[in-house]
């Protein structure tokens, strides 16, 4: 038996090619079973995410497996596809499951997607000895990489970093109230990230009230007229600001005015505007934590650097685990 991985991903193919070969999750099992009906293919798992479509195949001969695949699928542009055989294919699967091959290094969503792809193929009867053992080992490698290395530590985007900081200040974000000043894309992403982690109420204010309403509706929040945002400050925990104003929008006296009403509770300011929206003087207020775009970018970049330094260690874990497996076909 020989193992083959045939696929394309975000590095080898643009989105317009990837979308042509994307397989919806509900069809993954069926597709895998169809492939096992092709000549030369004994086992098959189809993995399809927004960043990749990969076929993990096993058969008596790698050449026959590839020929069978070409017969079953019109591969179109050849340059976009990569092909790996035996140990290289096994190592690639472990790298994918561990998030080492992802667009965001170390992301964990892919682990669940690989599990789902395998579960569906297994349920459809498309897997047997080789792929069953390989995927089980890839899952244990993925877990080991997550627990024994720092590959997933620290957020690697501005929005993710802001969420991590909010959690460091407030713990669980359930019940946290957020105000977004300026309805730009970056503030939408950051507010959305906070909402996805439990923030309960989002107020949106913008010079154009229609735009504020639009963004508020998108996030299930409430639009506030631009003249009224200062009153809202008393009841929120997080302020995200990203206006196009050429001067500071939030000044020290705005915060001083609501401190007593807030009973001096912590207040987290995320300033993602350039020029900055929040006067740096605001940071001198004791209960205020102020982070601007440069600091957030720097923290995200440091986290990316820390993750990259873990790649070698992850490679060592993969090699060790695959050596233990001693799988036929690799």
């Amino acid at each position, binding site marked *: 038996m020989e193992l083959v991985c045939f696929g394309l991903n975000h590095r080898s193919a643009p989105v317009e090619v990837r979308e042509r070969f994307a397989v919806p999750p509900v069809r993954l099992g069926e597709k895998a079973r169809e492939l096992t009906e092709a000549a030369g293919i004994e086992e098959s798992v189809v993995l399809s995410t927004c960043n990749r479509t990969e076929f993990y195949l096993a058969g008596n001969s790698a050449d026959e497996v590839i020929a069978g695949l070409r017969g079953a699928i019109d591969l179109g542009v050849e340059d976009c596809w990569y092909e790996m055989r035996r140990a290289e294919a096994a190592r690639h699967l472990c790298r994918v499951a561990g998030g080492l091959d992802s667009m965001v290094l170390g992301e964990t969503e892919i682990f669940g997607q690989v599990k789902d792809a395998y579960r569906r193929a297994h349920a459809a009867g498309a897997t047997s000895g080789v792929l069953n053992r390989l995927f089980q080992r890839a899952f244990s490698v993925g877990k080991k990489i997550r627990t024994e290395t*720092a590959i997933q530590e620290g957020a690697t985007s501005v929005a993710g970093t802001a969420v991590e900081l909010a959690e*460091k200040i*407030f713990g669980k974000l359930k019940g946290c109230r957020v105000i977004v000043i300026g309805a730009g894309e970056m503030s939408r992403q950051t507010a959305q990230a906070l909402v996805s982690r439990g923030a309960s109420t989002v107020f949106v204010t913008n010079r154009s009230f229609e735009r504020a309403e639009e963004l508020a509706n998108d996030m299930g929040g409430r639009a506030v007229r631009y003249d009224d945002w200062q009153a809202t400050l008393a009841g929120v925990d997080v302020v995200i600001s990203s206006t196009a104003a050429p001067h500071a929008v939030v000044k020290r006296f705005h915060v001083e005015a609501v401190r007593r009403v807030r009973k001096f509770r*912590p207040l987290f300011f995320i300033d993602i505007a350039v020029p900055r929206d929040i006067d740096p003087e605001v940071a001198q207020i004791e*209960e205020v*934590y102020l982070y601007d775009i440069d600091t957030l970018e720097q923290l995200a970049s*440091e986290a990316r650097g820390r993750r990259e330094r873990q790649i070698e260690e992850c490679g060592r874990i993969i090699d060790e685990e695959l050596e233990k497996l001693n799988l036929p076909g690799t």
Partner: protein
Amino acid sequence: MERAVYLWFLVISTLLAAIGGAMGMRALRHGHRSRSTVLWMGGAFLAQIAFLGIRGEARGACPLIGLGEILVFLAWSLTLIYLLVGPTYRLSLLGVFSAPVVVVFQAIALIPGVLERNPQRVISTDAWRETHAAMSVLGYGALALAAVSSVMFLVLDRQLKEQHLSSGLFRNLPPVRELLVSGRRLLWLGWAMLTVGVAAGFLMPHEDAGAHLVAAVLVWLAYAALVGVAQFRGLTGRRFSLLTVVLFLVSLSVFAFI
């Protein structure tokens, strides 16, 4: 024979707390939490119970006579409340910060002359006196833990303010809000126990305890003011924490001299 045994328990307890604290610090330096700190502190707690049990048996009363016994009882109540509160609030790091306090208290008790070597049996006991002493020291345990939690807040606050966020300590400290909530609850708990202790103090025969009771009332009033202001007016986390730490240190030194 017995004397040597209780001293050994105190030494063992101090060593276990020191190891727990050191393991916790080491784990932090490597960027993760020490799961074993709570076990080391649990061991230290058992050795404290053994020490206090032997001393209590010898005295025929609650072992709270002299600075040495008070310090060990205080360390015991701090450990007890840490073991009760730490897991509830997921403040696993509290052990790392509590262990040094326990070690310092017990190390002082171990200094020759601090702990009475031959504890005399108490001839007559008074229930109010015992309640006063035990509740006050238990209250101090909670207040000590509130001070420890406040130190943790001050460390985290400084790191967040100065944007030094890459240390293992930062990654493992509980969130700001959790530290403030637990600190406030511990303060309430400590103050409530102190209230019972002070009330019992007025009901015990106090012909020779005038200055002691005045100091107790002043400390109680100071904590009442802090608890009240924090609850009803509100205080910034930094001021609340600084006041909690300073008040604990000041009141502890007041009682060391009275």
